[in-house]
């Protein structure tokens, strides 16, 4: 980074770029969350299951996020690991109403955390316990218990309950991510 870039950074003209991976099982609401974080004029109305992955960009007060919104379908999950190297932070989305697949989410999270590209890096991980609006949704505390998040010792992590359709709880999570990166 040259002197000019630094200067621009101080002055707030140019924002620091952060690459974020958005991961989670299918139907957990990754695309909806990313869509909600974009400025309102760029949001799309219909969300369809992601094939492969898609790249989305949005800006906050001090950072410019480039999000790799990965597909969560079983057959595409093996694509995740190819993007671990580039990612500087991870957003992991959990469908908190799907108790049956909590164990699958845990398994995917464990594989993710034990991956050589991630294991020894201090990558911040933001968990969204999504779909809080549904009647049988688990609380974020319960979700973090089921996923054994307390075992993550070497990485900063944060879990927040969210409702991606209404956009509740998203800003809190992004604020945390912004402060940690």
């Amino acid at each position, binding site marked *: 980074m040259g002197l000019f870039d630094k200067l621009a950074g101080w002055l707030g003209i140019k924002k620091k770029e952060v690459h974020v991976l958005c991961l989670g099982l299918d139907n957990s609401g990754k695309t909806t969350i990313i869509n909600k974080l974009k400025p309102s004029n760029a949001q799309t109305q219909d969300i369809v299951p992601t094939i492969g992955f898609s790249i989305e960009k949005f800006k906050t007060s001090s950072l410019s996020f480039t999000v790799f919104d990965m597909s969560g379908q079983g057959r595409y999950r093996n694509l995740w690991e190819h993007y671990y190297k580039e990612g500087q932070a991870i957003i992991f989305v959990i469908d908190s109403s799907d*108790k049956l697949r909590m164990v699958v989410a845990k398994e995917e999270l464990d594989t993710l955390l034990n991956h050589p590209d991630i294991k020894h890096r201090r990558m911040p991980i933001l968990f969204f316990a999504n779909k809080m609006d549904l009647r049988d949704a688990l609380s974020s505390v319960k979700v973090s218990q089921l996923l054994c998040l307390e075992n993550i010792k070497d990485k900063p992590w944060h879990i927040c309950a969210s409702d991606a359709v209404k956009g509740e709880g998203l800003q809190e999570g992004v604020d945390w991510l912004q402060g940690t990166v």
Partner: protein
Amino acid sequence: KWLEAHYDPLANLYTFSSCIALGGTATPNSSQLVVGDLGTGVYNMKLKVYRGTSLVSENTLLDLPTGLVAFLMDQHEPRTPAVAVASGPFIYIYKNLRPYFKFTLPPLEVNALEQEVWSQAREDKIDPMSLKEMLEGIREKADVPLSVRSLKFLRLLRDLFVPLKVVSRDIALSLSGCVMSLPLPLRGTGGQNRSQSLVIIIIIITTTTFLLISVYFSCLSPSWKQSGARAQGDMRFRGAESVLLSSVCVCYRESTKPKYCIELSSHPVGLVRVGKNVVVGCTQETLHGFTQKGKKLWTAYLPAPITTMSLMDHHARGFQAVLVGLTNCQVHMYCDKNLVGVIKTPDMVTSICFGRYGREDGALIMTTKGTHLAVQTEQECASPRCRDEELQSPAGVTVGMRSSRVLRVLLDEELQSPAGVTVTGLAAPVSSSPPERGSASLARARACRLCSPVPCRPPPQVQGLGPSFKLTLNIQNTAACRPVMNLAVSFLYDESLYSMKSAFFKV
């Protein structure tokens, strides 16, 4: 690898594999678990529906459920999900999980002599003792079985005769069968649009003697002829009769006589159809595989008696196996006669069901003897598929190899170029022909050249599209009188592209 998704020791489910099904919703993404709960076996029979981990609805059943199937009802979109429950002489259809229709099986003909005896008894012309004697006589001689009432009467003690007679005075004698087999849903003619025509196969069995009275086929949605062609292959008598006869009969449409009969050495406890074959589990801790025509294919020996059997059909992966629940708290997964997986369960399993549950493709649902409900999901990266290169290989050398398809093409070209082969044929023409599989070709051809003068006459055959495939290499001795011994074959290959278990072996 199986993950334990849910374990509910308080589910209070007492059921068997035939009374458990996945489906019941129009969209497969939200499929539910429908269970015909036998309750205590006498009362408290219920149709329970689970979504995810929670029970969403309960319907009381009047009689013991004997079979249950979930299917889609209408011809047109949107299709209505429906559940058919066979229970006693009725088949109840639940549309959208609400009672919708009830089929009644046609009553069976009652033995004329028996009817006569009872009508005399009604008019007090004969006393209970002689009634009993006459009924016993009928039971021994007549070919039509006695009605339930007569059989109950014969079991009664003498002093109870009179009240029974009074009670039964006004009720006409009837004999009805019982649906013992579950209906089978068949994928209809248009496989793409998932049109399921429900072809019900009803097997009527008298409740007491387990004699096969008649077999009915009926079809709910499209016309019978449409599905007839397919159905013919799928119609099969599901071993209910075999309970007493220790044989399995294969019936075809429009005939009550079995076309083929498979005699077993012991009583069958479960029967599953895998493709065109039939897998029968027997009481002697054995599992037999038969063709549809009754030819025995294989026998596998199990470590413990069988409690239940079910088919595991993994559509996404094109994999079929038989799940066998054993009394030693294990579930074994058999692909043909090969054991491809063992799942340990905390309790003895009484029913198994495999399919798409919720959003999970490979969910395995089990209920146990202690009326627990367990749901396990299969992890995506796990591959229980039967590795045929290992299993079917003869005693010869087998080498598994992985490579991509592009590489394979290259490989083929190299193999087929005659140069690699003919040049190697030196003065000592050689033989040795173990079927060996394996590896990268170009490397191999070169290897032959280097190590020994072995011409490889038909170029090695490559089977499969990858990522792992089989290479069959035939080495032939073309010399008339020179034996060749102690040949070494080594494979040279690019290790970044291929992997092999052993790149060197002796022939």
